[in-house]
């Protein structure tokens, strides 16, 4: 447990706005920040009435579209906090359920599926970045409350059947490893860069949005942390939607399986026959 995937520290990264990255269509980020500044001048301001706001957050987009050529995206977040606070950024998807095959040894030497594990309350994307290790800056209770870090996530998840606490811990660890392997879970320290800014502390992070993350409603949350407690958090939605051909095909596969199946078969028959004819005409087939 508590394995961390360390991302390279991107010190001195140019904090230029990351709008317009090729291949991503973005709508203007809707922000609820009082921090406007020059770079945010074009952005909408809303929810500005928070008194004594300790942290601000601007995500580069609130909307990711999956089209035919989609190969993941990037998400960047920036903002300012009071000096001396730590920053945690959590990118997460809604909780879901998952059923997985459990591998174990049978007949002493053979590895194969030996059972089924049902997981519940599993976010389909979970990435946590912090300026320092979470266990050093947050009390366990506070981390649990906000589900920050793998330890807290492990307590948050539900799974069955498990025989004992050790058994549970083992399979939670395996689950996180399984998700890390498909790039859906990550936890790292140091990916957030900070710098002094007009007497405050500016922070910036840019990370890859995995193409493995399915369509859905996600959130980017920024936490300002001091003395073991979250003193403020800001949540920004990021919704991931399919468009165009991708959307049409995936809807049809789900809602009209019979027609979709027939179409797939007809396409395959046509292609097979067509290629056969081409080869015959080509005359090389002797």
């Amino acid at each position, binding site marked *: 447990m508590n394995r961390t995937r360390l991302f390279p520290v991107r010190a001195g990264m140019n904090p230029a706005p990351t709008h317009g990255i090729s291949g991503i269509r973005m709508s203007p980020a809707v922000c609820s920040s009082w921090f406007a500044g020059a770079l945010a001048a074009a952005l909408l301001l809303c929810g500005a009435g928070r008194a004594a706001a300790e942290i601000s957050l601007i995500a580069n987009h609130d909307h990711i579209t999956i*089209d*035919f*050529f*989609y*190969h*993941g995206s990037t998400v960047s977040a920036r903002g300012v906090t009071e000096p001396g606070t730590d920053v945690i950024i959590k990118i997460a998807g809604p909780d879901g359920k998952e*059923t*997985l*095959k*459990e*591998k174990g040894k*049978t*007949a002493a*030497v*053979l*590895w*194969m*599926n*030996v059972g089924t*594990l049902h997981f519940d309350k599993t976010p389909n994307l979970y990435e946590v970045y912090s300026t320092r290790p979470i266990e050093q800056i947050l009390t366990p209770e506070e981390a649990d409350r906000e589900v920050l870090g793998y330890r807290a996530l492990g307590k948050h998840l539900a799974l069955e059947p498990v025989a004992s606490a050790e058994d549970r811990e083992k*399979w939670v660890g*395996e*689950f996180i*490893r*399984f998700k890390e*392997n*498909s790039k859906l879970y990550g936890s790292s320290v140091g990916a957030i860069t900070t710098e002094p800014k007009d007497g405050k502390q500016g922070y910036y992070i840019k990370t890859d949005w995995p*193409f*493995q993350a*399915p*369509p859905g409603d996600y959130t980017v949350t920024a936490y300002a942390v001091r003395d073991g407690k979250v003193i403020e958090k800001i949540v920004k939605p990021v919704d991931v939607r*399919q468009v165009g*051909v*991708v*959307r049409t*095909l*995936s809807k049809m*596969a*789900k809602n009209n*399986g*019979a027609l*979709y*199946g*027939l*179409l*797939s*078969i007809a*396409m*395959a*028959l046509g*292609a*097979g*026959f067509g*290629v*056969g*004819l081409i*080869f*015959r005409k080509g005359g090389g*087939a*002797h």
Partner: protein
Amino acid sequence: MYLYLPVALTSINVLIPVGLGLAVGLLSGLFGVGGGFLMTPLLIMFGIPATVAAATDSNQIVAASTSGTYAHWRVGNVDFKMGWHLLIGGFVGGLLGVQGIKYLHAMGNADFVIKMTYVLMLGGVGTYMFIESIQSMRKKTAEKTEDKPDSAFTRFLKSLPLQTEYTKSDVTHSMLVPILFGGFVGILAAVMGVGGGFLMVPVMVYILRMPMHVVVGTSLFQILFNCIEVTFLQAYTNHSVDFILAVLLLLGSTVGAQVGAVFGRKLKGEQLKVILASIVLAVTIKIVFDLTLTPSLLLAQAGGH
């Protein structure tokens, strides 16, 4: 170039499925197998969910086997009558096999039984075919004409009613023989979740005594119909066929099947059998390794082999 797969919900470099299709399609045209035992694990390795990999592969095989059947039919190497009889058996066997899986799951250790059957079948068939074809290659050079005395099994097959002549294959059998053995392969294929080409080819060669070149064409013909059925059922009940992935795979596999069919004509029956046996044995060894080495991940998605 990367394309997004709408059902697999992942993105893939187009060269991967086209290349895989080409390679597996080549085997298909050469040996008359669907190649699912190679394609499905490879797709899973490249991040395609197991259920989508298996379903989409069967869609792709529809195209590859159409292309291959057409190529073999043009040179008169498809025995349609034999193909139909095998199909009737295979269809009934498939239905029985699906019931068999339910029964196995009710008993408990279904995965163990299925995996063991798969390994033993692959290993047994591969070894037998390998030894037999090497022996017959040697024999041919030594003494060309030596009629083997009929074994008890052959005599039994000849005593069955409904004897018919299969002119393309130049053999005479009771209609019941291809139907029964088609059914047997159908049951095993359904239980193991594979197309069963690697079992059907040896059945046709060693039990039905068909010439290898007609075996390949006829096998592709019956695989075509099996895969049409499987594709429809998968699309209808599991929604797991990925259209885009299937298109990418068949771009390679339809061409591969044609090339394989042309190559196959240049090789002797025994040579084809030795190569197919080696591939089947290599896959068996790979599976045995997978079973004995500690896996890197202890959790996996349901489905697949």
